[in-house]
């Protein structure tokens, strides 16, 4: 492209022919206000706020928009002639008379010296800048938004105002909306707690704190480019050209010396316990949902709010939902009492709500835990000994106190109580992951009746498993809190390091062997081996035993119809000899 010389307010600058005046002005440090301009999109020139006066020095003059007026040699631009100022002011004034005083307009008004518009203040919140429509179109490529209707009825909507199938919920429209006309968190004025996780997500993030490697990665579930093929804004702004869209998930085979299983737990789903109305009453939350709401990056910005956006007047926290329960899990989930107390503390800190704790036994067993409990009691939390029995909509006489009614038996005073509250938090049980059985099979370890992995010995080997070199850490072995999890994880790491440092493993001399000549290839032993040590060699058509995996249990030896499997040090001859020795 050829270079051309233009002047802006008398200041000369060389720019590429056809490049836009706005960029040249930016380079010169001359500020031209804009409303509908975004650097990564084709200029739209709808707001007309960036109007400037173009002259050729020979008498020709015209008001043009800086955002899309191409430079040509000899062009003179003036950004502050009376004609320009009037054009900007009147346009802004007209816009304000249609739209509510959005901060972006108010700021501009202060800058341009526009006072209250002569034609009244409008109530619309959309300034028709079209950023949302264009970002969805040009950058995202989802084409889910459009302008509909004409003239003064023009509005931004999805096609035919129906729920758009093309929307990929990326939130880009809301992110770039300068007036807040488009919001993500609000569905008809309701904050849907069940959709808390759908808040604005950035597709690029560091997975968690102190992640290794500590580098951002693209989450393909949220990346606009992965969904539509568009966007690529990150690569446009990355100065180091680090963005690689081609990177894919891969299967890698690694040779490893030890395995630590730390698969954690899943939350108990309280929906089947219909007496608590979870899923039926919008303000009955599970503990993890409440935790998400409290996150500063949540759609409520960390505020504790009911579905209608108001602060609750009172909150009940129900312990032992699904745990210590004959119908569900008999065990104690161990962490709930403490986080329930933490919730109470958070509620007291953030709101003026009354808090009721409904517990069976307050298990504050850890170091400093009891002290925290005592502190909570001084914060004015109501502690009731008795499990919550039922949650129902509050009758009208309670409406001044709460919209829900918690029914319970206060076993300390021996009375049935009905407590009106606005919000209920269910402290749901920790339970073994649904796929724990599969994991157990894969690693040759076993699970208990509750689904937790079984350690090698409950007292003497709480970290090891029956499979050599496989260790357990955390809640996958059984409910435990963070300090216990860290302790067990550290122990598992130590065990692994010990193995790795040895370099080689001492094997028991006792294991089973197959005499190939005698093996018929019947494969009966393959399925019987509890340690998956026997495989079938398809070429030789005989079974083989991996001596490192074999625990010398003897099952295969006994089962082999041809007697091809021998247990080393426990051959028939040796056993007979021993028997003879005893009898002799």
């Amino acid at each position, binding site marked *: 492209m050829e270079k051309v010389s233009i002047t802006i307010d008398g200041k000369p600058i060389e720019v590429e022919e056809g490049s836009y005046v706005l960029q040249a002005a930016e380079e010169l440090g001359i500020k031209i206000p804009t409303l509908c301009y975004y650097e990564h999109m084709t200029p739209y*020139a*709808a*707001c*007309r*706020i960036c*109007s400037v006066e173009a002259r050729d020095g020979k008498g020709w003059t015209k*008001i*043009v*928009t800086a955002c*899309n*007026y*191409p430079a040509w040699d000899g062009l003179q631009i003036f950004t502050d002639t009376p*004609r320009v100022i*009037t*054009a900007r002011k*009147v*346009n802004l004034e*007209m*816009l304000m*008379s*249609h739209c509510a005083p959005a901060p972006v307009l108010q700021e501009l008004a202060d800058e341009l010296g526009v006072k209250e518009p*002569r*034609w009244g203040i409008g109530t619309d919140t959309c300034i*028709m800048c*079209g950023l949302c429509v264009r970002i969805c179109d040009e950058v995202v490529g989802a084409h889910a938004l*459009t*302008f509909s*209707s*004409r*003239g*003064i*009825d*023009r509005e931004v909507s999805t096609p035919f105002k129906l729920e758009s199938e093309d929307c990929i919920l990326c939130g880009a429209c809301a992110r770039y909306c300068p007036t807040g006309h488009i919001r993500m968190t609000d569905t008809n004025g309701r904050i849907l707690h069940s959709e808390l996780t759908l808040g604005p997500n950035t597709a690029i993030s560091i997975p968690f704190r102190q992640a290794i490697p500590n580098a951002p990665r693209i989450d393909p579930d949220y990346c606009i480019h992965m969904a539509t093929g568009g966007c690529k804004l990150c690569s446009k702004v990355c100065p180091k050209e680090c963005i690689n869209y081609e990177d894919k998930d891969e299967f890698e085979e690694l040779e490893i010396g030890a395995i630590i299983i730390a698969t954690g737990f899943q939350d108990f789903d309280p929906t089947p316990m219909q007496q608590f109305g979870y899923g039926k009453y919008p303000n009955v939350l599970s503990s993890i949902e409440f935790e998400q709401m409290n996150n500063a990056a949540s759609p409520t910005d960390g505020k504790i709010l009911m579905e209608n956006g108001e602060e609750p007047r009172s909150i009940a926290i129900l312990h032992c939902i699904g745990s210590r329960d004959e119908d569900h899990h008999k065990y104690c989930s161990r962490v709930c009492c403490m986080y329930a107390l933490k919730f109470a503390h958070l509620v007291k800190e953030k709101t003026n709500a009354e808090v009721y704790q409904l517990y069976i036994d307050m298990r504050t067993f850890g170091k400093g835990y009891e002290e925290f409990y005592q502190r909570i009691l001084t914060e004015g939390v109501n502690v009731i000994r008795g499990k919550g029995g039922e949650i129902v909509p509050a009758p009208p006489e309670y409406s001044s106190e709460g919209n829900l009614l918690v029914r319970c038996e206060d076993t300390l005073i021996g009375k049935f109580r009905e407590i009106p509250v606005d919000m209920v938090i269910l402290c749901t049980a920790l339970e073994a992951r649904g796929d724990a059985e599969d994991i157990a099979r894969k690693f040759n370890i076993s699970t208990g009746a509750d689904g937790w992995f079984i350690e090698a010995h409950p007292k003497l080997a709480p970290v090891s498993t029956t499979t050599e070199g496989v260790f357990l850490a955390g809640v996958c072995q059984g409910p435990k809190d963070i300090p216990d999890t860290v302790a067990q994880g550290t122990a598992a790491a130590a065990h692994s390091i010990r193995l790795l440092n040895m370099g080689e493993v001492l094997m028991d001399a006792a294991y089973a062997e197959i005499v190939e000549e005698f093996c018929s290839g019947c494969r009966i032993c393959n399925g019987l081996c509890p340690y998956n040590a026997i495989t079938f060699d398809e070429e030789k058509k005989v079974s083989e035993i991996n001596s490192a995996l074999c625990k010398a249990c003897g099952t295969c030896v006994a089962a082999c119809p041809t007697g091809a499997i021998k247990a080393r040090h426990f051959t028939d001859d040796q056993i007979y000899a021993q028997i003879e020795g005893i009898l002799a």
Partner: protein
Amino acid sequence: MNNNKFTSPEDLNRLRERLVKQREEGRIIITVCAGTGCLACGCEAVTAAFREALKENQLEDKVEIRTTGCHGFCERGPLVVLRPEGTFYQRVKPADAKLIVEQTIKHGKLVNKLLYRDPQTKEVIVKEDDIPFYSKQMRLIFGMNGHMDPTSINDYIALGGYQALAKALLTMTPEQVIDEVKKSGLRGRGGGGYHAGKKWASCRRAKGEPKYVICNADEGDPGAFMDRSLLEGNPHGVIEGMVIGAFAIGSHDGYVYVRNEYPLAVKNLNIAVDAAREHGFLGDNIFGSSFNFDIDVSRGGGAFVCGESTALMASLEGKIGEPRAKYVHTVDAGLWDKPSNLNNVETWANVPLIIEKGADWYSRIGTASSKGTKVFALTGKINNTGLVEVPMGITLREIIFDIGGGPPKGKKFKAVQTGGPSGGTLVVETREPKVHESLVAHGDIRDEEEVVSLLDLPVDFDELTKVGSMMGSGGMIVMDQDSCMVDVAKYFLNFLQEESCGKCTPCREGLRITLEILTRISEGKGQMEDLDTLEEISQVMIDTCLCQLGGSAPNPVLSTIRYFRQEYLAHIVEKRCPAGVCKELVSHAIDETCTGCHVCFSVCPTNAIIGQTKTLHVIDQDACIQCGACYQLCRFDSIKRVKRGEGDAIQYVAKEKWHPPVKKKAAAVA
């Protein structure tokens, strides 16, 4: 016939000679106008009645019925012209068909009641060409309409069609074609008046392939229908023009963007495109040359803004019909960002004429800066509503009074609005003689000398722009003494507000606010500073609107303020509507001339008129909604439109003065 394609001009000439011979065989032809106007008046039934009548009289072989496109004189439809004599029958009803066949065709006698009678001279005129409406026109591109069936390509060929195409393709280079068009001085008829030849040359020069040729048939101006009538009546003329243009520019793809609200135009155009393709005027190797070109007909959804070139192209691309900035011209980057040459229907229709008859012939018509003819759609308060084709440079007076016959019922001509909704309202003919004292106090009275009658303005692109209006697509709305200029501005602004695409702030919001202010003024709530505000907003709109539709939208306001400032002041200061149109400022009252005919009584929708037959009627001022139904109906001019609140005073005087009309018969008996 499998192969109808013409591969050489000789083929075409042979067919033409054969067709002309056929036409000259002395058969009588009944041409029935089947333009949309006459269709609405029931011309289909008339055609059927003619068929029936011919059958009855066993004349089917000797007489041909030809349904043609619009003749232009829509006011008098359905029109029937008997050729070759050119006998002109107007307002023909199905029942008249038999009469015409039996009297005129069989016996050569005229049917007097169907003949045209000049409203001024009361003279009966028999021949079409002698009627002033036609005789003062110069029907270059519309002339063919009355002589051919638009669905018959043979008719077009017989009248010399596609000769220009043969000439251009086989004897001229593209550059010569462009030079010819440049020399002719043809300017775009769509509104802007850009020189067609220059545009073609830039498009030919532009880098990028393919190039597109587009015909803008998205005619949306209220009251304008010349493009529709051309497409309906002579679609081949437009197609021929486009092929010649495409040849000159080097394009192989053409589009016609036509409003879906023009079903007949779409139908006839599609028939014509198919026929042209079948005969080899479209498609590959046209006339055996190596030039290929074809046309797609695309139907528009009826948004006014899609008549703007960039919005039209966006719509063609399947996007929202919104204009974009034209800092880069469409001849460089238009449809799909490729060089695109867009011209309006009428412009394309002029092209064959220029090629066939030569630029020198063409440039002799018109004024120094505007050549050729222009079709105007004459509507409003005028006797001869219809389409008129006149040479450029003709005066408004000739169009409105000589051709149009002036306002009906002898009312006084007041103004004419040209150039569609964004055009200006022009011409001061009558002035309000009474000047209210309060006006003088405001110092807003303009000197008498400043008011110039523009009736003798020669009509061409530049002259109209100079006086604050524009040629536009050629709408011409005539207003008489009963039209209120504030109301007129309000009407056009309302149209524009509804049709604004809403993309840019000044057009979307500016029109809304302007309309609000105008409405306020028309309701008597205006203030003196409103005029300044209107002018301020208008200037900002002219400066900053994205497209020309917005940029010219303030024209109706500015031109009415410019030429009819006093009328605005009457509304604002005196709270009076001189024309008696603005309902909030008007009262209806009955004066002493009332005959007690009782007609008004029955039409009043709110029963506001009190009175019995042969007594003085009175309008209940509180119940009257100023609908004007009684005013329109009163044959004795007894119902007066007066300033709001003065109705009772008039009716009080009427009560004093009124006496029953003299009953002649009763007196005789006595």
